[in-house]
């Protein structure tokens, strides 16, 4: 992970972006991510109640205390291991485009399963806030979520919200502001994978480091490579070709040319 730059970095550092902080929304499908996106940006796209709705990366602008933020709504994913198109889009965006803040939207009614993604996101970046959404639904079903304990365990801030009613959204924006300004400092407590995997990761990280744009999330890209992600592996064998095909992928059309490809029996996590 590159040096932390308060305020202005990642996407917003690109010329012409006017130094507006970029905030990405990541989360499992159907956790209310798109609803939160609408609340934050004031865009009123209809949000359907079915997983897989957000296939494209949607973009809008939120204002908080007179300051604009670019909000990116990533496709809903269970993981960042890039085993499906949505995962690839979300993972590549977080690893390579480096948003200033990443909001992990988690469903409070099944927090444990949602934390799997949160733990992967803190592998990619430090500037993370977990948004525990649908907290009213969880309470109705008899779950109490201790947001402070969650924040302590993860080492990143956590905020409870009910996005469809706008509850907790102002607090979430305060935390986003703090993360952008550097007044909130995170100390993510990450998962460890055991000595063998860690050693392999280290080796791969050093080989990858020189071949990625500055600031790329080398550790997680190395993890993807270890799990057999071809797009990262190509970077090692044929860097030039890989850079040409790999880096612009987030901008590429979502439907690859369909040939008579036998479907690979693949279960998403």
């Amino acid at each position, binding site marked *: 992970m590159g040096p932390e730059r308060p305020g202005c970095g990642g996407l917003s550092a690109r010329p012409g972006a006017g130094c507006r902080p970029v905030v990405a929304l990541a989360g499992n499908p159907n956790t209310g991510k798109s609803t939160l996106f609408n609340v934050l940006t004031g865009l009123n796209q209809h949000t359907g*109640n079915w997983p897989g709705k957000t296939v494209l990366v949607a973009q809008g602008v939120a204002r908080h205390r007179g300051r604009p933020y670019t909000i990116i709504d990533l496709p809903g994913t269970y993981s960042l291991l890039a085993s499906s198109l*949505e995962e690839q889009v979300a993972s590549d965006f977080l690893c390579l485009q480096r948003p200033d803040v990443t909001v992990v939207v988690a469903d409070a009614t099944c927090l444990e399963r949602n934390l799997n993604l949160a733990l992967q996101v803190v592998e990619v970046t430090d500037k993370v806030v977990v948004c525990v959404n649908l907290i009213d639904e969880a309470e109705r079903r008899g779950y109490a979520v201790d947001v402070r304990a969650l924040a302590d365990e993860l080492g990143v801030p956590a905020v409870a919200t009910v996005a469809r009613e706008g509850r907790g959204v102002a607090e979430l924006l305060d935390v986003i502001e703090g993360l952008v300004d550097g007044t909130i400092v995170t100390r993510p407590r990450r998962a460890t994978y055991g000595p063998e995997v860690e050693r392999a990761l280290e080796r791969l990280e050093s080989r990858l480091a020189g071949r990625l744009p500055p600031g790329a999330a080398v550790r997680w890209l190395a993890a993807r490579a270890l799990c057999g992600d071809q797009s990262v592996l190509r970077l090692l064998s044929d860097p030039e070709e890989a850079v040409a095909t790999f880096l612009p992928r987030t901008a590429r059309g979502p439907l690859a*040319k*369909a040939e*008579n490809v*036998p479907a690979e029996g693949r279960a998403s996590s």
Partner: protein
Amino acid sequence: MTERTKAPPLTTAAITDKLVGSLYRRAEEVARAAVTRHGEGWDPTPAIDTLLTSRVTGLPIMLFALAAVLWVTVVGANYPSQVLTYLLFGLEEKLTLLFAALGAPAWLHGVLVLGMYRGLAWVVSVMLPPMAIFFPCFTLLEDLGYLPRVAFNLDAVFKRSGACGKQALTMSMGFGCNAAGVIACRIIDSPRERMIALLTNNFTVCNGRFPTLIALSTVFVGEGTKQVLGPGLAASLAVVGIVLTGVAVTFAVSWLLSRTLLRGVPSFFALELPPFRRPRVGQVLVRSLLDRTLFVLTRAVLVAAPAGALVWGLANTPVGGHSLLVHLASFLEPAGRLLGLDGFILTAFILGLPANEIVLPILLMSYLSGGTMVEAESLQTLGGVLVANGWTRLTALCFMLFSLLHWPCATTILTVWNETRDRRWTLAAVLLPTAVAVVVCSAVAHAGGVLAALAAG
């Protein structure tokens, strides 16, 4: 160190297992620290899901929901449709008077009022009411979280057809608009299954075709069964029948494709059944009216106006004693007859390529050429015009089947091109449904002809 060299090298699968395993253990730890359970709470979702997705009750509930939505649409659309027709054609008379008062030349009045305005009036009065009812109903079901349950119920059938269960979702989107359905196919990961979903989306009756089907069912099925079921119910059941035929054809063609052009094994996917959420009725009404209804209507209007002018022009340009339109129709007559249709109908389908909504209006204008149509104040008049031009129930059936199965509208074709960027697949998306339509319609027309002959003999 010797230990390490002895240990077998880690495979990709083993590393993935270790990595994912560590993440899951850590997630469990964190969740244990943060979540406590107090009491049982109240969550009816599992019980409702058992009902909605069980083998016994799942399918009937699905059919019932479909029939209910269509019934509400058919019955609810009838009255506002008549009011709109009355108002819009009343305005047309005023416009005609205005043109006469201004001393405008006949051709200008013809193109603008009898062509463009009339086309518009038909599209608005026939299309707007069913759309304004169907879209909110559908959006409510979507908001509630019913669609993933539909996908769950249909998964097994799609698997058996060699396709992906998520195709049920893209199919559901197709009910709104096939172009939207084609875009929704992006949620299917395997390129092979995505292509199957994309090529068959056209067999889902889109909102441009619903009003046509509803109008014809009301005239040819509803009117005839007043005593038995009530016209509204009979007409809605007829539309349900057409929709289900489309679903059946989707399965059949998917099966065929997965065994020929797009061979392969169905892939696995994880589908989450989201919790049921209380739909925000106000928001649903406003959004489905503004985002969907007005959007689709605007598109139809933009297409209908020039199409109306074109039809008027064709009908009023005489070449050798007959208008261009009549020449075109007589050229297509043999092909139309083969499909249980006629030359004018086929012409209307071809001219209606830009949007399915305008097929029926174009047809009416063609039948009443001389360039104009009668003051059709209700659907009964619509039936009168059609019967006067030789329509039977068999013609109506073949028309509805052809509308269900024929080539996609221009917007959808363009979307297929955008999604595939492949000329051959785009062509396939046009030719495949057309071939199915030709086969089915000519078979039905032939069978119908034989039955009629038997009944007469």
